[in-house]
């Protein structure tokens, strides 16, 4: 464009000025005046043309139907021939799938499989219904003790479109004979005692519907003291018992410290107003306060509730100014004979407030959950300590009777299955709100943007994975994250290239932003990389 004018800070028209110029009647009358004569209008030619086309179609369809009576049958056959694979479980990274462990069992005997995690699978002798009872049946099992393994296996972890799952343990079990799926006798279900990775309080138990990709509740019984048998240790030496008590004390101190370090989210940091405080709408200079410029619906709340003349709004002031000192704001009202300084803070209203309130509620829920988990673990440790102390006084029987599982042992989920598939101890959690403007995804040290077809956001604080793009319920345009949490974002391009980005908590969700991804190197184990990254990030 050769002829172009550049304007800087041209005054904008406000909505009232624009709406005052709305004149639909004028637009309508001009439109009606510009209409062609009736014989030129589609309304005239439309029915004539449509009638001709209709007659032609009627005859041609009748002709085709009489020539081709098997047409519908062929269509039905084509639908039946569609592949049965629903692609429900689809590993996002080629070559990085979680392998199954395979066990050969005799369908005529009671069999028991114990996995390295301690998970126990009991297969009664009448449970498996293979075609050939004289041949063994292959039982394939894999467990997903952490979010990385569930991710690499491609297990869908969304629930009813709005939620993602926090998992406390998940198992997939399949059975086949000569590559043919073996049915399970519904009268004799397989019994599984799955070791849990978290305390199951507040969690539900689910099975994956591989057709709908959704999860349905499955009956379960939780047992928290399965280690009782293993706990009958040879703790009859006082020195060993004392060592155990010292160890527990250290763990309790560590828990107390981590509890004191968990910061309770404040309404102030989310710019949520306090109803009892006075508020002002102030047209401030966005250039001077770029940190506030991104908020559309901002008002200022006076911090003190008393100690100032509340009737100051009725006075005439010659000047009102906003000043900033470090992170605090102050409003200064000036009149000829008077000056009033009031500390204020920016607060949101309208839609932005609703969004902020939602995020605040999530942050509070996460905070409460963390504290409750610390308390639960502490209570378990204290009971253990009491039992050891009694043992020190000679009550070893009491120790073996009362010793409860350690915090690292969260018990088992006992359930029965008469269908192969994925079973999961989980709790749904809401997806974060989509960012107002989708950010750029950019490769590090490169001027090219990443063309991700799938994005996975691992929220390390909430122990969640949110999925966007292909095979996910949420498109990439819905991308969002909880800005107050530690995150690892993983993007996959269609060609298989992948990138990783770490975002530490407190990254503001700025309106215009870009997220820089470090390119994964070929041959690198994604599992190792993700595990390392997540552990490192957690420890920070």
């Amino acid at each position, binding site marked *: 464009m050769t002829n172009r004018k550049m304007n*800087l*800070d041209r005054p904008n*028209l406000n909505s009232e000025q624009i709406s005052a110029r709305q004149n639909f009647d004028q*637009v309508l009358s001009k439109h009606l005046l*510009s209409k062609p004569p009736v014989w030129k209008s589609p309304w005239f030619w439309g029915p004539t043309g449509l009638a001709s086309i209709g007659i032609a179609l009627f005859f041609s369809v009748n002709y085709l139907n009489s020539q081709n009576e098997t047409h519908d049958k062929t269509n039905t056959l084509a639908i039946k021939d569609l592949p049965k694979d629903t692609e429900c479980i689809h590993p996002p990274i080629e070559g990085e799938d979680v392998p199954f462990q395979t066990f050969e069992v005799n369908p005529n005997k009671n069999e028991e499989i114990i996995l390295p995690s301690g998970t126990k699978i009991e297969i009664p002798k009448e449970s498996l219904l293979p075609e050939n009872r004289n041949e063994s049946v292959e039982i394939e099992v894999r467990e997903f003790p952490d979010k990385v393994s569930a991710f690499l296996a491609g297990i869908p972890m969304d629930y009813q479109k709005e939620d993602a799952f926090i998992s406390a343990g998940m198992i997939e079990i399949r059975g086949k004979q000569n590559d043919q799926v073996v049915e399970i006798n519904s009268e004799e279900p397989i019994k599984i005692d799955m070791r849990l990775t978290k305390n199951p309080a507040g969690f539900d138990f689910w099975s994956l519907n591989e057709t709908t990709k959704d999860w349905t509740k499955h009956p379960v019984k939780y047992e928290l003291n399965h280690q009782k048998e293993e706990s009958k240790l040879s703790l009859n030496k006082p020195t060993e018992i004392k060592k155990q008590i010292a160890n527990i004390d250290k763990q309790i101190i560590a828990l107390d410290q981590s509890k004191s370090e968990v910061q309770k989210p404040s309404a102030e940091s989310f710019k949520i107003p306090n109803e009892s405080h006075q508020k002002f709408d102030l047209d401030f200079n966005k250039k001077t306060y770029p940190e506030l410029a991104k908020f559309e619906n901002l008002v200022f709340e006076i911090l003190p509730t008393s100690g100032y003349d509340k009737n100051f709004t009725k006075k005439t002031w010659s000047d009102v100014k906003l000043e900033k000192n470090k992170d605090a704001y102050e409003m200064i009202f000036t009149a000829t004979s008077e000056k009033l300084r009031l500390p204020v803070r920016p607060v949101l209203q309208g839609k932005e407030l609703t969004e902020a309130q939602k995020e605040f509620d999530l942050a509070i829920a996460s905070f409460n959950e963390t504290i409750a988990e610390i308390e639960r673990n502490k209570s378990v440790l204290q009971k253990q300590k009491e039992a050891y102390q009694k043992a020190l006084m000679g009550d070893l029987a009491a120790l073996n009777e009362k010793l409860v599982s350690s915090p690292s042992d969260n018990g088992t989920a006992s359930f029965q299955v008469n269908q192969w598939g994925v079973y999961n101890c989980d709790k749904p959690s809401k997806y974060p709100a989509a960012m107002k*403007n989708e950010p750029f995804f950019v490769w590090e040290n490169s001027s090219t943007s990443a063309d991700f077809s799938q994005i996975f956001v691992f929220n390390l604080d909430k122990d969640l994975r949110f999925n966007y793009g292909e095979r996910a319920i949420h498109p990439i345009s819905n991308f969002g994250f909880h800005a107050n949490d530690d995150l690892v974002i993983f993007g996959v391009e269609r060609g298989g290239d992948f990138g990783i980005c770490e975002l530490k908590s407190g990254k503001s969700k700025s309106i215009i932003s870009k997220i820089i991804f470090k390119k994964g190197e070929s041959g690198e184990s994604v599992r190792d990389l993700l595990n390392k990254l997540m552990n490192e990030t957690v420890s920070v």
Partner: protein
Amino acid sequence: MTVNPLYHHTHERLEEEQVWIQQAKSNPELFGPLYKKYHEPIFRYIHQRMDDTEMAFDVTSQVFMKALKNIHKYENRGVPFGSWLYRIAKSELYQSFRDKQALRTVNVESVTLFEMMDEMDEDQSEINKKILFRALGKLKEEPLQLIEMRFFERRSFKEIGEILDITENNAKVKCFRALEKLKKYFHEK
């Protein structure tokens, strides 16, 4: 600075809009609610690119006349009604530039320039503001349009794609290239 709130419709609002469209197809007089809803965003889109406010109001009226004339052709096949209107607005706007009735104008706000400096990892200074303003003037029409939509009007890549009739991903790639071009001009002495 305008975020486009109408683009982020709720399901109910979209359904309501579809009813209005169907009604307007059978009776142009029932186009009123659509006019009322989209008048301001379409005007702002045009005025953002034009110097003459009166001319911007005239072009806005032409956009709605054209929409009324062609509404029978509109079908909801992935392109929202708003984006369809923006396509008409873009066409009418460039027609007015070709007819030499209007002057292509780039309206920039200081606050946007400061945000862009942040985005470009440059210091937020008055000198850089001037350099960036000058660099924007050097951009060709296509990258300029993308910068305007993405940074001045804060549209999503999906909406930019719908207005320019390209895919969402293509819009994203093109926006990124436009920003790179702008950075290049910014660093040119």
